[in-house]
């Protein structure tokens, strides 16, 4: 032990992808503006059972609720253990992103999803 870590973790060839918490990625601060800008896309996926309806108030509250945060953590953990590939296929996620998810690589998944979604965006606008 020479008083410092041998290498920065990510530079170490034996280093595995860190298990990060998807709830931290999807925190209120991080996603509030995006939620505001995509209300209609997102609202339809909210619970719709009294006393909850798919309205602005529920949408704004969602990412701070323990129930959503727990689901996000679980989703992230499943993705990073390579278990989300088949699930994501059901949601029209493109093959490269599904493959990245199947490898348990969240960063690569984010990258591939960005490529396909920004390409879609171009299509939708023309």
């Amino acid at each position, binding site marked *: *032990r020479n*008083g*410092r*870590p041998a290498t*920065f*973790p*990510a530079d170490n060839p034996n280093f595995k992808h*860190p298990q*990060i*918490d*998807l709830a*931290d*990625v*999807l925190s209120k601060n*991080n*996603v509030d503006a*995006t*939620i505001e*800008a*995509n209300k209609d*896309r*997102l609202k339809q*996926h*909210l*619970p719709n*059972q*009294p*006393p*909850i309806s798919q309205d602005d108030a529920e949408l704004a509250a*969602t990412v701070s*609720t*323990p*129930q*959503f945060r727990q*689901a*996000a953590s*679980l*989703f992230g*953990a*499943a993705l990073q*253990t390579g*278990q*989300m590939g088949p*699930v*994501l296929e059901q*949601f029209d*996620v493109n093959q490269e992103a599904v493959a990245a998810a199947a490898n348990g690589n*969240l*960063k690569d998944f*984010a*990258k591939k*999803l*960005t490529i*396909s*979604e*920004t390409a*879609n*965006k171009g299509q939708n606008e023309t």
Partner: protein
Amino acid sequence: MSDNAEWCLIESDPGVFTELIRNFGVQGVQVEEIYSLDEDAFVNLNPVHGLIFLFKYRENEEFTGELDHENKNDIFFAQQVISNACATQAIINLLLNVENPDVTLGSELEDFKNFTSSFDPPNRGLCLSNSEHIRTMHNSFARQTLFELDIKNTGKDDNYHFVTYVPFKGRVYELDGLREAPIDHGPIPEGQNWIDIVRPVIQTRIQRFTTGEIHFNLMAAISDRRVKYQKELNELIESGMDTDDAAHDIYRLQTLISEEEDKWDRQRRENVRRRHNYVPFIVELMKCLAREEKLLPLVENVIFEHNRKEVMKQYEFV
């Protein structure tokens, strides 16, 4: 057949228990979590119909009190025959021993109580686990299983166990589905609240946990406070007193009622969210973030933070 019917794990939460009890058809009960065993913690809760104690189960735990074989069929006590049902089991063992005008069991539980009245504890347990109605209500509170997951948290909850404490015919009983009979904790002296007898029993039990380990929680089934406050309010209004004190009391009771209404609304919302599958929302949100080119930087930030903390940890370690 119903032998194989599944009972899901449900969350130990006062809002879940309150709604579950109301869905059984019971009226006049709400559940509150208790954070302290001090006398003061119970002052505003009376009457307490029973307590449910959840703790990390350890095999061969010794117990205080006496197994009461003589009265085991007199008290409603169902033994546990399947594991995940134990929250509902503890709730049913509690409710079916309540004798208080504030509480109405409703036809489903009345029928169940009558039907099993001549049964012994193991057969009551069997009957409970085969009850379609009770199981359906219980399972409606199952945490949403997002997908078939291989995450190592399954089974963890199995190590938790629920027991019930109730006053019954002047004595305090503990109903533990893993014992063969109710445990008698002694008589309730004339004029004393049974809570004062049960507090030290639970205190002793908690003291056996390793210091610093919080592996238990305690819930009280009490009378629905909206009903209680409304009754007090009606009496006050009917008395026709027109004083500052009366006006102040009316205001106080109205505030308390609206606080209880708000709490019930919040608990029902939480319960709806508990049952909801958030996967489609999460996927859609990630797609939206990706389209705005925010997803990758956000992921990278969290990874960076994670790694920074790892490095800090390694330094501290040395």
